[in-house]
């Protein structure tokens, strides 16, 4: 009798702790083991102890993230090498063949650049080889920009965040420097910018939910062009209403708990950066992803207008409004994990069709 009562206690306790979860279990919507794992007393502490033991035992990869010297980086492995990339290459070729100056920049992820921080024997995907083979395929149609060597040569510097997938602002500068030279721009020297260390406690997307601890926060630095002075307007287009910032670095986000949005006000699927004054000229259309936050502020110092499109997050009717003929140059700039794991360039065909 006593045994029966004792056996009833755990289910009663768990049901009282999470009645909604319990009803989901009864309806078959939630696995019992998942429910128990979620509500187990001291579950978080036990889970963390197990992780700490694994770490002490030499494990340096957890849930697809490598841990190194207080930092985290994703172990990028493409789902399929050609599944999406072939389609993306075909679209780029089509845009390039339409007579627009087209540039392609594939950015390696942190685990390729910071190889010296990855665990011994870790089987890494050969990003360099993929970039080179893609560039060979694109030879003759688009101008390719290889940022891999410059990032790799500076891998002892802070070119990627410790807690975020993105390159740092310094990494963004190196990318810009390489790209500008290929895009007929005169890259500005680093000394032309004053550096402002805006945030010292930034924890990026990789650190969100990380339970093992030991991760050091990042510093967010803003590179401000000293001369010539320019006036910038960054417009984020959205169905809910446009947002406009009259600076490349809306610093109010630093105190609003979203420090990364201090770069251009964040990255929206459709953005426009307009610059007035000084030596700005020309219009650039960028098809890209979140990594644009690192390098776009540098490009903004050259162009009169930059339109940024993240085609994954855009509705068809929004893409239809873009006219490719309005731009002097088109840049496809993707991190390899975006380029290889999705049909990210698909909408660019629509932009081309609009023109016809």
């Amino acid at each position, binding site marked *: 009798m006593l045994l029966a009562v004792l056996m009833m206690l755990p289910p009663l306790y768990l049901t009282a702790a999470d009645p909604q979860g319990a009803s989901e279990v009864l309806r078959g919507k939630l696995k019992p083991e998942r429910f128990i*794992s979620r509500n*187990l007393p001291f*579950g978080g502490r*036990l*889970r*963390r*102890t*197990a*992780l700490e*033991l*694994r770490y*002490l*035992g*030499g*494990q*340096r*990869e*957890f*849930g697809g*993230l490598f841990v190194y010297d207080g930092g985290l980086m994703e172990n990028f492995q493409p789902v399929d090498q050609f599944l999406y990339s072939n389609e993306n290459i075909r679209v780029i070729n089509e845009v390039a063949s339409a007579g627009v100056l087209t540039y392609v920049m594939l950015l390696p992820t942190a685990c390729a650049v910071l190889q010296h921080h990855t*665990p*011994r*024997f*870790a*089987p890494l995907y050969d990003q360099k080889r993929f970039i080179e083979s893609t560039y060979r395929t694109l030879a003759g149609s688009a101008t390719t920009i290889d940022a891999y060597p410059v990032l790799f040569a500076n891998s002892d510097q802070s070119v990627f965040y410790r807690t975020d997938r993105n390159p740092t602002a310094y990494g963004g500068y190196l990318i810009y420097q390489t790209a500008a030279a290929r895009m007929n721009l005169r890259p500005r020297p680093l000394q032309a910018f004053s550096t402002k260390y805006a945030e010292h406690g930034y924890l990026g997307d990789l650190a*969100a*939910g*990380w*339970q*093992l601890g030991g991760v050091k926060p990042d510093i967010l630095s803003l590179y401000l062009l000293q001369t010539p002075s320019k006036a910038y307007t960054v417009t984020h287009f959205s169905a809910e209403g446009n947002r406009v910032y009259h600076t490349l670095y809306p610093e109010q986000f630093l105190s609003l708990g979203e420090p990364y949005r201090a770069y251009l006000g964040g990255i929206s699927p459709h953005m426009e950066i307009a610059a007035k004054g000084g030596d700005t000229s020309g219009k650039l259309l960028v098809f890209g992803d979140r990594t644009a936050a690192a390098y776009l502020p540098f490009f903004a110092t050259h162009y009169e207008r930059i339109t940024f499109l993240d085609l994954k997050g855009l509705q068809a009717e929004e893409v239809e409004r873009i006219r490719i003929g309005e731009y002097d140059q088109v840049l496809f700039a993707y991190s390899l994990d975006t380029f290889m794991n999705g049909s990210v360039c698909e909408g660019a065909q629509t932009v081309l069709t609009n023109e016809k």
Partner: protein
Amino acid sequence: MQLPRNFRYPFEAKTVGDFFNRFNTTVSEYIRKHVYVRLGSESGGALSASLNILLITMLMGLWYGLRLNLLVWGAVLGLFVMMEALLFPKIFKDVPQFYSRIYTFAITFVSFAIFTGDSLPQSAGYLAAMFGLGGVSVYNQSILYLLDSNYLVLLAAVFASTSLTSRVAGDFRARVPRCGSVMGALTHAGMLALVVGFLLGGVR
């Protein structure tokens, strides 16, 4: 309350038959008692004994799930049990412990490739990979990475699968009986907590 021991250091077994006596003993004893003995065990001659052995090892396999690969796992180990019990009983009795343990470990270790799969083709794939067939190298960077990342856990697992821990604990308990019991209880509670922590898994 006295709970029966379910595993008695199966990796210390000297023969595959001995392995079955140590691995999941509550099940093997149940099957032996209710099937093997009732069928006449080894009393009906060599052929009958062979079939009986094969039947109980296959039943042992099916205990873990209704899958063809588990049936084959039981049958394969059954063939070795038959060989040990009926064909070469003297050899297996006389062979030095060191060699018999290596033999048993190798057979059971390889057999777990059949056990692990979800289907017979998958198990065949594991076996092929184990022996470097089908274009898969015997070792590669992924294996080195796994070994390098987990070598302490693996060493602890090897140590814990032997009776050494039990012998050390028994010795300690004999010397300091009161303290030994408390330490034993604490160790078991700690191990339980750790196992639950590892089962919960996940880092993010």
